[in-house]
Every structure is written in C-alpha cells, then in structure tokens.
C-alpha cells in the first residue's frame, strides 16, 4: 500500500453536497477506492444548498465536493457564502454537463470534476484542493453568472443568510456595511461599490455611503435644515421611521430612476 499521503496519518475531512442520493453514494464509493492513495473521512453530506450552509461549518470539513446544480442555492453562490467562514473549506465543483459553468470554471481557474467522476481524477482534485485551501473570493465572483440571492453574515463559526429581497437599505460605516431589514440590522464586510455593481437593478445610490432598495422607496421629503445642516431631500421608506438623506449630487439620478415617486 502506498502510504505517502499529504498529511501522514491524518484523514482528509470531506463534505459531499449533491441532490441525487446515488451520486453521493458513488462519491463515497470512490473515496473508499482511493483510500490507499488518499485517506479521507466523509464528515457530512447534504442534498440541498441551504443545508450545506447550516451544517458544514460545524463538520470541520476541509474539502467540499459540491454539485453546482442543487435545489435551494446554486453552487457558485454557496461557495461564495462559505468563503466568509473562518475555516473556509477548499471546494471542488462537480457537474454532469453544464457548458456555461465549465467555461466559467476554466476562465477563473476553479477546480471541477465531470460526472461520472473517475477515481484518479477525484484523488488528484482532492489533493490539489487540500493543498491550495479555500478558493479566493475574486475567482468565485468572476465565475458567478448573476447576482446572489442572499447576503451572508459570518458569525464566528456559522453563516447567517439574509435574503437580498429583504434588505431595505445598506449603509457604509468605517470598514463595515450595515444591512437594514424590517427585522433588524446586520454587519457585513463587503465594499459598498461592489454591492452597487452586483445589484444595480435592485438598489439605487442616494448618498456617498448609502444604497436604498428601489422597491422600498415610498417617497421623498424636503428637510428644511437649520443650524449647520443644509436643506436637502430625504428618502421615506416603506415600514421604517428612519429617513435617509439624499446627497445633492445623487438627487438628479435618484429622482430620474423613480419617476413615480413624488417629492413632498
């Protein structure tokens, strides 16, 4: 038996995510077959994306074998959220046939396997991924086909997902961005500029430090000013008392993208 493994004695902790039970069974079988070359232990398996987000962090997985077509959440978005973990796993994508995804993987140097998976390829991909560690964020962003459905908030060793559709506004403060939903607030570590780019259709910039969901805007209010505050417009939001100032620079474009909203 060949005993030259990457970490002598240590087993690679693998998590399997695929919505088809036979596909998961097959991967487990193959992991058994390559045991001589690469010792591994399956620390968890899931059939849908949201469950992976919930369970993977506490499994201590080092590598995730991730089918890109799963119910709940697409593979690339899932990988992006997992990247927020302190001990983010390395990821090997698995696909049966998806020309667009494969092109994106190639273009962004992401590791992937084609189904049916061969034992040798699996061993090689796992070794490479384990050595390389988590996938850099930019590469995943590059491979994404569209905007995410969730923002992710990393809390120590778990991930909280906030549906993008629930976010009323985002405000940048120092190095964090605050997400405001009807229910509360969350801090995320993403630059406002890249959020603005990714969700151009959903959010509009009203101020240097603030994006507002177009659908949440009920109208505008003129603030008289006083003291050292200049008179300005502010946004009135659905279901929130808080008013958000519109900067003089943003006012023309804010007004233009919301032709129905009335100043008042």
């Amino acid at each position, binding site marked *: 038996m060949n005993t030259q493994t990457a970490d002598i004695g240590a087993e690679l902790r693998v998590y399997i995510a695929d919505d*088809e039970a*036979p*596909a998961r*069974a*097959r991967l487990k*079988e193959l992991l058994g077959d390559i045991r001589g070359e690469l010792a591994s232990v399956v620390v968890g398996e899931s059939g849908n994306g*949201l469950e992976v987000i919930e369970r993977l962090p506490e499994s201590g997985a080092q590598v995730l074998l991730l089918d890109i077509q799963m119910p709940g959440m697409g593979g690339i978005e899932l990988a992006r959220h997992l990247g927020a973990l302190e001990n983010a796993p390395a990821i090997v994508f698995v696909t049966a046939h*998806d020309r667009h995804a494969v092109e994106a993987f190639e273009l962004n140097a992401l590791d992937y396997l084609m189904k049916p998976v061969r034992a040798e390829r699996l061993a090689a991909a796992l070794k490479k991924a384990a050595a390389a560690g988590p996938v850099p964020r930019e590469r995943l962003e590059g491979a994404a086909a569209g905007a995410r459905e969730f923002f992710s908030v990393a809390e120590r060793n778990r991930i909280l997902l906030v549906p993008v559709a629930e976010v009323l506004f985002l405000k940048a403060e120092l190095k964090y961005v605050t997400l405001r939903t009807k229910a509360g607030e969350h801090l995320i570590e993403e630059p406002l500029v890249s959020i603005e780019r990714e969700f151009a259709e959903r959010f509009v910039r009203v101020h240097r430090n603030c994006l507002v969901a177009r659908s949440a805007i009920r109208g505008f209010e003129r603030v008289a000013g006083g003291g050292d505050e200049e008179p300005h417009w502010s946004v009135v939001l659905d279901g929130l008392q808080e008013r958000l100032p519109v900067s003089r620079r943003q006012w023309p474009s804010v007004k233009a993208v919301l032709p129905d909203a009335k100043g008042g």
Partner: protein
Amino acid sequence: MASIRQNPSPDVLPDFRNLGVVARALVIVNLLALAAAFIAQPDAGRMLETAVLGAALLEPPLLASLALLYAIAPLLRRLAYWPACALIVALALAFAAATHAALGKVTEVGLARMLAYAAACAVLVLAYLTLHLRAYSPALAEARLQALQARIRPHFLFNSLNAVLALVRSDPRRAERTLEDLADLFRALMSDGRSLVRLADEISLIERYAAIEQLRLGERLRMSWDLDQAPMDALLPPLVLQPLLENAVYHGVEPGAGIGDVLVRIERRDDRVHALIENPWRKPGQGGRAGNHMALDNIRERLMLFFDAEARLESHIDGGRYRVEIDIPYRAGRA
C-alpha cells in the same frame, strides 16, 4: 397510414379526412367563384348578384364532393395517384351536372359552362393540394422532421450513467435494468422519427424514462399515471410525450428540495386523443429554471407536420401547476 410520407417520390393524394385539407379546398373554390364573378361582372352591384347565384350553383356540388371524398378516403388511398385524380374530377362533374339539372332553370348558366367550372375547380384544388404536400414532402418534411427529432438533455444522460455506476456494486440487477431502460430510450431517440408509433409503445418508453428519473431523484419525484382510458392502439408521432415528461422533471421537480408531483393522463375523447402532463410550477429565478419553449415549439411543429390543423398543443399555469395538453385525432393502427 403508418408514415406520413411513405412514398418519397411519386405524388400522393391529399388526405380528405384532414380538416386542413377540407378547409383549404373550401377556401380555394369559393375564392375562384368570387374571382369568376368579378371577371364576368366588374360592376359592383351586379357582381354581388352574380356571386350569390354562383354560390347557389357552386356550394351543393362542392359540399357533396367533399362529403363523399371524406367517406371514400380509405378507398382513394388504395388507388394510384392519377386514377384517383380522374375519379375525383369525375365526381365533381357528376355532382355539378346533378346540381344543374335541379337548379339550372333558375339561372342562365348553361350546362357546358357549369361543367367547365367544376372541372377547373377540381383540377386547381388537386393541383394546389398536391403542390402543398410536395412543399412539405417528401424530402423537405423528412429533413424537417429529422432536424426536429427530439434531443434529450446531456445533463440527463450523464447523471443517469452516474446513477447506474452507483448501483453496479450495491444492486447489480437494478443497474442492469436501468442500463436496459437507457438503451431503449436511446434507441427511440436515435430512430429516424418519421414513422408514427403506437401509443402503447410511447407509453412504455416514458415509463422507462420515468424509472430512470426515479432512480436519480428518489422520493423527490412522485409520478402519478392515469392511463386507464388511454387508447393503446392510437397512432402518434414518436417522442412527443417523452420530452414533455423530461421538461416536467427538469423544471418542476429537480430545482425543488421537496417532493414534486408529476401527473401523466392520457385518454380518448370520442375521435380525439387527449394527453395531459402536469408538474409543479416554479418561477424562474426563484428556484425555477429558465426555459425557452424550444421543446414545446419543436413538438408543436412535428404535430403539425403529421396532423396539419387537427393537432393542438397548449400550455398554461394554473394554481401553482404547469400543464401541457396535447389533443390529436384518434387514428387506430398497427405501426
């Protein structure tokens, strides 16, 4: 008639039991009559009068001819092209003569002119219908049918092979059965698609397909079959139902984490065959997959090539369910 165009080169008679053929004949003859009336009486007021009188003479032999042709369509099919054409023209002439005998006194049209009109109409309609058939056949329609041949998603092939691999060690017998199902499915997919098949064969094909999907998706796919009233001897183009079921699984079941109910119902309603395939509707973007209606357009066009205006394919969303319905004429046969 197991194939739509089984004689590739010589001209074939139109099918006088086909609604499209009958409608075309009616329209052509009436247009010809209008044109004749216009030429005879360019004056608008008198032209109308001429047209009405013409119609009185025209419609009885026309309708009688079409009715008789409908009745003797199976007999006509056994005749060669030219004798059949001669028979049709003779029929038209006989009906015209009879009509003239009954109504000729009312109008000033002579028997010779009446017969000349009838012969001209019969020849023109036959010529048009033959040309129309030629435009769709043989080579063109066959090429079109081959191009339209249903294609299975590669996604399905590779996932199925993967599922079989997972069975080889744990359940070799089920692996064997699944490979046999796959082989049958691909044999059907690679057949030339120009011959009609029996509904019984098409149903056994989609049952095999469903068995493979069941293996992959397990309890997430819940199939219901309602086939008690299905006319197993009905003829239909091959691979009309399988792509619809494939769509139902791909769009309705796979993107969901929960259970997806898919219903297949096929029944005979008088002289029609009605098929319904139903699956959960998922909005694209909210777990649903974007579709481009390629499969539906493709099937619709194939149905048209086989049944002309007599086939219908419709899809609609209703109460969270996506439904596709097909309605074709019932024709029994042993393919």
